């Protein structure tokens, strides 16, 4: 039983994205959103910004 599992109908489509960096980024975003499905407000901004920097190899 995994609490971060996203519907396979969606993840199958994510796997079809050609760009591997964007694919990985979207996987991580959906997993983070799924994990916090019950919360109105939760931290995501710094996580997503870091993921974007890593994916693009850029700095602040």
């Amino acid at each position: 039983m995994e609490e971060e599992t996203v519907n396979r109908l969606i993840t199958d489509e994510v796997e079809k994205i050609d760009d591997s960096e964007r694919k990985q980024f979207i996987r991580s975003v959906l997993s983070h959103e799924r994990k916090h499905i019950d919360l109105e407000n939760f931290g995501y901004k710094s996580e997503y910004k870091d993921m974007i920097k890593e994916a693009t190899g850029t700095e602040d």
Partner: protein
Amino acid sequence: MVQILELHLKNYRQYEGETTIDLRTTPEKNVNIIEGQNGAGKSNILNAITLCFYDEEIHQEATGEELETLSYVSESVVEGLSTGDSARGYVEVHLGEDNPDYIFKREFETFKVPNGHNDQTYDIELSRRVGNQYEIVTDPQTTLNQLLPAEVRDYFIFDGEALTEFFEGGYKDRVRNGIIDVSHIGVLNSGIDHVEKVRDEIQRKAKNVEGEAAEIQERIETLENELSNLEGKKATLETEKTEVENEIARLEKKLRGASDQGVQDLIQQRDDLREDIDDFDSRIETTKQDILNELRQAGPAVYAMDALDYTVDQLKTLESKGKLPPKIQDWFIDELIEQGECICGADITEGGETHEHLKELKSTMSNVSTDNVEGKTEIPHIIQDGNQGAETIREYRRRLHELKEKLESKDQDLSEVKNKLKGTDIPDDVDVGELTSQLDDLEEDKEDLIQEIGRQDAKIEDKNKDIRSAESQLDEELRKEDRHSDIVTQKDFATRAVDDMKNIKEKILSQIRTETEENLNKYFNDLIWKDDKYTISLDEDYSVEVQGPDSPDNRIGSLSAGEKQVLALSFMAALSDISGFTAPIVIDTPLGRISGNPKKLIAQNLPDYLEDTQMTFLMTDEEYTDEVQGLMKHRVANEYQLHYADGTTEVTSYE
């Protein structure tokens, strides 16, 4: 298959002492039956699960029964207490695939007070299996909500009889929410929203810009504020619309409570007319769309008909004067020269007069003459297509006119029926006249709100376009400065990721809707058992139409209670096919309002539709007949009976 492996109750309601119910199932035998007469404590099994998980008893919510007069702790235990003393009990739910991965527990306490009792529940506790050990989870509610969030629980743990109300007024929102939440489209929506917010923040980091870029950025901020205001306005309007819809549903329920048969007949007529009007509205929209499509195809030819006729005349004149050559392809001349001999026997060898003539002819075949030749044959086809298109449009217009006339007539009939209802005054019955007037006003308010929401949507779309255009301009400006190149790269990446997610959402939504519609059709027709088939459609706005047998009208409003329950059960089963959650299903009185063949068919088919899902049915002896038992036997893992006597229920294996 995630399942409820065991349910442990201690002094909960009529389950005095400690009760353990083993609910382990297998993929082949995925059904549990708990049978008990009304009042034996069947619904309190459902309540025990929702009390443990969500700190509320769902059956009480659904029926409005006065359960609060009874204590959480078994009455026989509370009776033995002295005033001021208290007793505790708990509900424990073991969840997992083979062994319990999660043990959820909620304790409750009842205090005896001079005039009765007070109940208190405690926070949910959770032990999670890690290897062979169990560890206490510090935030159990979060884990539970990840497994089965409160917003989707109604699609997994529910009262079957309450399903008859699922397709009553306001059902579109329930259908929409079910599809969006259960399929995880909500997760995708929230991801899109959050990445967009992050992208906007990244963009705002380019703050030390000057000149043109600074101006554009300021403009974007102004536009975003305006957009935010518009979205706020839309949200307010949608809340108002929901309130109006709720009020409509409340008054409708009251109106339907009228005991006078004449009033009931008028309500039925009104409902039928509304369905007809919806049907005509939808057919008018389709016909308008057909006209637009035909216009797109035939429009250019129709509008240019005079010019085309003139061109054909000119071409004919040229041809009659011998100024327009017949259609000769240049490859034909090449082939003739290569062969060196014409079919008439004339010599075409190189150096000869005929050879030279042909070469000259080929070199003088200009594009213009080719076009003229093509035009001579193609233009009449275009004219023909244009004429056919014009005729089709005329036919569509005739149909549109007829539909509008029929709609007008139905509108008039509806007004008359409403006036009759408004003029109804039956003593000792509900105030039909007043309720109908209020409903009329509310329907008008709702229509105004829908239109206003539509206007806001258009403004929001325009504002978004302005923002996107300004953002592209800003990107251009920022690219001119190296120091901002990282920001532009990050922003581009986020924008593309958002586009990807939006594309996935669009594709998945359409796929999910189609799949739900197909399964809804299959399940409903299988379960309802009629010789002629029903056709069920699920539209883009989440409205559901039920047509047939023998009637093209939408019957959603006139289905019987049993049919409505079957439709809702079919929808629940269809939802499980698109579900992102692998949660067990618990249904209280699944066959409550259903009789005859559908009852047998549900017993037989439902476990097959949900073959990868554990199902626990809480049934009365009237539901779990010998026939139903026989039909379900091959699917049933555990069968229990509830024996109620002297205020206490005992759970035993089925005899």
